[in-house]
């Protein structure tokens, strides 16, 4: 089997997290394999985005161990993100989170200037390439306020890809996009996944996206505070392990 060959790039063991005394998830464990498009799904408020924040190191988990790209993530509360992860992880925030005072060029050049010692010329070539990859060739000198929301999101993806990361985290990438833009973004994920080999970890509850791009997934359940289902979403739809998961994947069909 193909899956057997790939090795896990993210391993979370016995993870518990929440806010203060209130726990969102208890003792969950999962693995993300290299080159996966890994979907984190679940109803609203079950802790999907919080889990993403924990994986990216923005927030500390209450308990448990996370290893991302062979680097143990700080799960105690010092809040420091290991330097190595800055190179190997890119993050696409919900609204793109582009710096509004900088042009797209400056936005994407920033991580390159920060973490590489490339010449200015090479940086400008790389920025042009990344923008072309997300379909924004020629938009270098625009400010985020001058382009549409979908374009901002794609530019955010270009910034996330700037350092050729191994993992790209995406927080609700298709939220607020029209069906065609959302579809184009999905295609882009697939293309980048197959050609760059980038692992994607995507938080979403857009069913069409989940089925088109997901190669592996977990379903978080807020009530039992655990993972109710895991595996390829298409397989899950065929053999739902529980009624809840079936309802989620079929938009609540009886």
């Amino acid at each position, binding site marked *: 089997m193909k899956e057997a060959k790939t090795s896990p790039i993210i391993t979370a063991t016995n993870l518990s997290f929440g806010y203060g005394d209130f726990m969102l998830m208890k003792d969950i464990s999962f693995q993300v394999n290299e080159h996966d498009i890994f979907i984190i799904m679940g109803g609203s408020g079950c802790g999907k985005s919080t889990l993403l924040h924990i994986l990216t190191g923005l927030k500390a988990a209450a308990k448990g161990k996370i290893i991302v790209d062979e680097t143990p993530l700080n799960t105690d509360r010092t809040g420091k993100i290991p330097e190595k992860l800055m190179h190997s992880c890119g993050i696409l925030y919900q609204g793109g989170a582009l*710096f*509004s*005072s900088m042009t797209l060029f400056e936005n994407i050049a920033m991580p390159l200037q920060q973490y*590489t010692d*490339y*010449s200015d*010329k*090479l940086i400008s*070539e*790389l920025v*042009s*390439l*990344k923008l*072309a*990859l997300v*379909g*924004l*060739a*020629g*938009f270098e*000198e*625009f400010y*985020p*306020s*001058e382009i549409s929301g979908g374009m901002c999101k794609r530019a955010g993806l270009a910034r996330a890809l700037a350092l*050729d990361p191994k993992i790209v985290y995406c927080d609700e990438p298709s939220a607020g996009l029209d069906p065609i833009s959302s579809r184009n973004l999905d295609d882009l994920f697939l*293309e980048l996944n*197959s*050609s*760059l*080999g980038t692992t994607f970890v995507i938080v979403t509850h857009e069913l069409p996206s989940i089925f088109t791009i997901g190669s592996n997934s977990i379903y978080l359940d807020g009530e039992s505070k655990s993972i109710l289902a895991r595996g390829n979403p298409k397989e899950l739809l065929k053999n739902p392990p529980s009624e809840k998961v079936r309802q989620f994947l079929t938009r609540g069909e009886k």
Partner: protein
Amino acid sequence: MLEYQIEQNTLTLQLSGNIKNEDNDAKRTGLYADARAQNITKIRIEGAELEAWDSTLVALIYNLIKQTNAKATVEYDKLPQNLVHLVKLALSVNRNPTQEIPKKLSFVERVGQSTYEGWQSFKKGLNFMKENCLSFMRCLRGTAIMRKVDFLFVLGDCSYKAFGIISLISFMVGLILAFVGAVQMQVFGVEIYVSSLVAISMTRIMGAIMAGIVMSGRTGASYAATLGTMQVNEEIDALKTMGVPVTDFLVLPRMIALMMTMPLLVMLSDFMGMLGGGAVGILMLGFSPAEYWEYTYKALSMKNFLIGLFHGFVYGYIIAICGCYYGIFCGRNADSVGVATTSAVVSSIVWMIVITGVLTVIFVEFGL
């Protein structure tokens, strides 16, 4: 390793070994220049011996193809599939921006533009003040849409929460006034009149100015930032579409609260300033408290005191209007909130000084 040769309009690029972090400016520039100079119709890329690569190589190939304006046919020979795929993906979308980047204006055009914009924003400001007047009328008639909770919140924010900073600043200003005054008065041996100096200057104008400057930095800035963030979050649009006048709902409570509390803050400032002067008079110049108080009391006049309060009242209006105006007409991004806050504080201080000048002339003309 990266090598190339050109034969009969064909550029052959040979890639081998490990091409990572390929950052050789001279080589790149040479390659691109050659590709441009010679009429290249075909690019052949051979990668049979390529072992490892990263984005820098993709960028190189992409830019190389771009140099020929994508006219050349490209042939990939034994290149890794995903590398070819990536180059094709980058080349696939050739959508050029539809919007034009605004071009640089000449000096005359810029002068004209900023004059026009200045005039426009002056009219906008007057219009805003008119809207506020109408809101205030509605408020008097009891038809303004304003929440009591909001009003009480801003009232608290610009009254007792500001006591500490106003007290501290005014105390220090009184102290400085007395100190500087004492040095001059010592020459004539009339140090006791330091108390009169402090009493008159604090009540007539300094108390109001100090309270005004502190409140414009403290409260005016916070109004601009709050309303600016609301503008960024589209909350102000939501109010407009609900038919709630923004001036009623957001500006009115802030304006009334500041106009109510500023005279009170001026009183506090007057008192603290005199206390500061007293500290110098009693501790440094060695007057008895009763003596100092007597000369202070003699110098105090109801007229000066009321003029000070009136100034405070006017400053309250200016601070609230400037803060709210720049907040409401804030742009849509993070930067613009900063700009709005700065403009609110700067313009409220400038207007305060200008209006003080005007008022002083008027009061002096009327012999007050």
